[in-house]
């Protein structure tokens, strides 16, 4: 049974006042809040088993290694990967995508080759590709967007060619809330001999992920958007790709044998985890996965979509409010209100205790496509309520009234 009030009880941060008003946190697409069991798991790790992994003969070292590798198994199961060899802990989605671009991209791209992305991507799924095509002489191409901010498979077919080596697309848009047809895009990529890379930062926290079913070659996501700690994320990669890729960072933990002039690497996944890994982060991510599994990913998705639709319905009744993105959306509502710049709107809402994001959302090319310089965004997660939406809508009306009154 999904009971939002029970869920809220598990998030200590939500029970506070901001600017004298109860906090209404509508910025989970930027980062989610953390339930007590995640905070406790990280604390317990430091209090009881903190030690370095994969080296100590001592007991704590074994406990820490078990906890770290145990978290990897939880991730494997959560995203339905076939082996923990395919689950690499990274600093986050950005690092994961950079790893694919730097390691796979540089080794597999040359002049005449193409990398295909979309204009709705987050900067972290644009800039690594810009850099790698500059370094290799390959070309960067964009799948155009439909008017409602979706991707048509016909456009994918027309953009992806036999020269395309990499297709990289976000699963869910952090701005439009668009849920992209990854499985179908991957099929087109594969038919043309390209690999499929997926930025899953905005989908993994909110819906069931099955990398096997999506048939993607790489899939990246961050823990902090899914109730886990900051500073850790995951790169999933199909084993045969990862085996052929060079490590991204060199140093401790990732070596097999080190000589004076040459070295060899550990097996997967450790060859990609140079340096002391993010042990506490992995433990926290494991706890977050347990928590999300207890609530149920399908319940979470349904709850958020309900809140987004509930918000859109009320917002569309306010004169001058423009909402971006398709009708069928994830729990993200991006909008503008006539005469009120999004920063001003966010400040007004903040005085009411309501946290929303204002700006370009790390998607400047998408802002250009929308023909706006900035937008405001309310994003929902499992702990938000209809009352949160009501408070937010009242805040919107207040902002309109305030700026209408000064104009």
């Amino acid at each position: 049974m999904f009971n939002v009030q029970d869920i809220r009880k598990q998030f200590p941060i939500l029970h506070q006042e901001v600017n004298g008003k109860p906090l209404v946190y509508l910025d989970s697409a930027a980062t989610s809040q953390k339930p007590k069991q995640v905070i406790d798991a990280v604390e317990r790790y430091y209090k009881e088993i903190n030690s370095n992994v994969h080296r100590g003969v001592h007991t704590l070292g074994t406990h820490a290694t078990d906890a770290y590798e145990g978290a990897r198994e939880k991730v494997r199961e959560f995203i339905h990967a076939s082996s923990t060899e395919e689950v690499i802990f990274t600093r986050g989605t950005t690092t994961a995508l950079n790893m694919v671009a730097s390691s796979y991209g540089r080794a597999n791209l040359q002049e005449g080759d193409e990398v295909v992305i979309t204009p709705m991507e987050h900067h972290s799924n644009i800039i690594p590709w810009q850099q790698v095509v500059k370094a290799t002489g390959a070309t960067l191409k964009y799948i155009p967007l439909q008017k409602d901010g979706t991707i048509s498979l016909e456009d994918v077919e027309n953009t992806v060619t036999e020269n395309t080596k990499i297709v990289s697309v976000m699963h869910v848009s952090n701005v439009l809330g668009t849920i992209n047809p990854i499985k179908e895009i991957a099929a087109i990529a594969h038919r043309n001999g390209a690999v499929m890379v997926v930025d899953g930062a905005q989908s993994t926290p909110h819906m069931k992920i099955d990398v096997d079913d999506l048939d993607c070659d790489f899939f990246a996501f961050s823990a902090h958007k899914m109730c886990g700690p900051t500073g850790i994320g995951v790169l999933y990669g199909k084993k045969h790709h990862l085996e052929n890729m060079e490590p991204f960072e060199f140093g401790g933990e990732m070596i097999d044998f080190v000589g004076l002039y040459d070295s060899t690497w550990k097996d997967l996944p450790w060859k990609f985890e140079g340096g002391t890994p993010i042990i506490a982060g992995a433990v926290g991510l494991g706890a977050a996965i347990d928590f999300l599994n207890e609530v149920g990913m399908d319940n979470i998705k349904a709850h958020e979509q309900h809140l987004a639709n509930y918000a859109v319905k009320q917002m569309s009744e306010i004169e001058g409010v423009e909402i971006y993105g398709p009708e069928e959306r994830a729990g993200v509502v991006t909008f503008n209100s006539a005469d009120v710049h999004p920063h001003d709107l966010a400040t007004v809402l903040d005085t009411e205790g309501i946290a929303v994001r204002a700006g370009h959302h790390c998607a400047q090319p998408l802002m250009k496509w929308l023909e706006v310089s900035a937008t405001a965004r309310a994003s929902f997660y499992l702990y938000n309520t209809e009352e949160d939406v009501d408070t937010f809508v009242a805040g919107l009306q207040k902002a309109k009234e305030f700026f209408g009154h000064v104009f």
Partner: protein
Amino acid sequence: MSFNNLDQLYRQVIMDHYKNPRNKGELEEGDLKINMNNPTCGDAIQLQLKVDEGKISEAKFIGEGCSISLASASMMTESVKGLEVDEALRMSKIFSDMMQGKDYDDEEFDLGDIEALQGVSKFPARIKCATLSWKAMEKGFKEQNNEA
């Protein structure tokens, strides 16, 4: 509904500059053209300055941004016109002090409308909006200095 907190930030004179920006537009021939972005939020302004014998004779701006950044640009262009370059830079320092909530020198210049922006210092997330045009001016003079 009370707007008390907001009224401190959005003083009437600020909203007047936002609604009726002074010196908005482009100079036919300016000496300095500076583009400045606030990469965290997407605000972008272009400032143009004309300097005759060390004195700022013209200042205009165009841009996209919130009420605070555009009102501040409007006020800034109004205030620096007629000032020597080093005076304008001193004024920029005074403005920066004001934004950081420090004690600032209100003797050397008549700050006029600019003082209405004092309330921004209580909204840390908005300070960069207010300082954008001033930073643009500083950048312009710095680049000019480097070239000379």
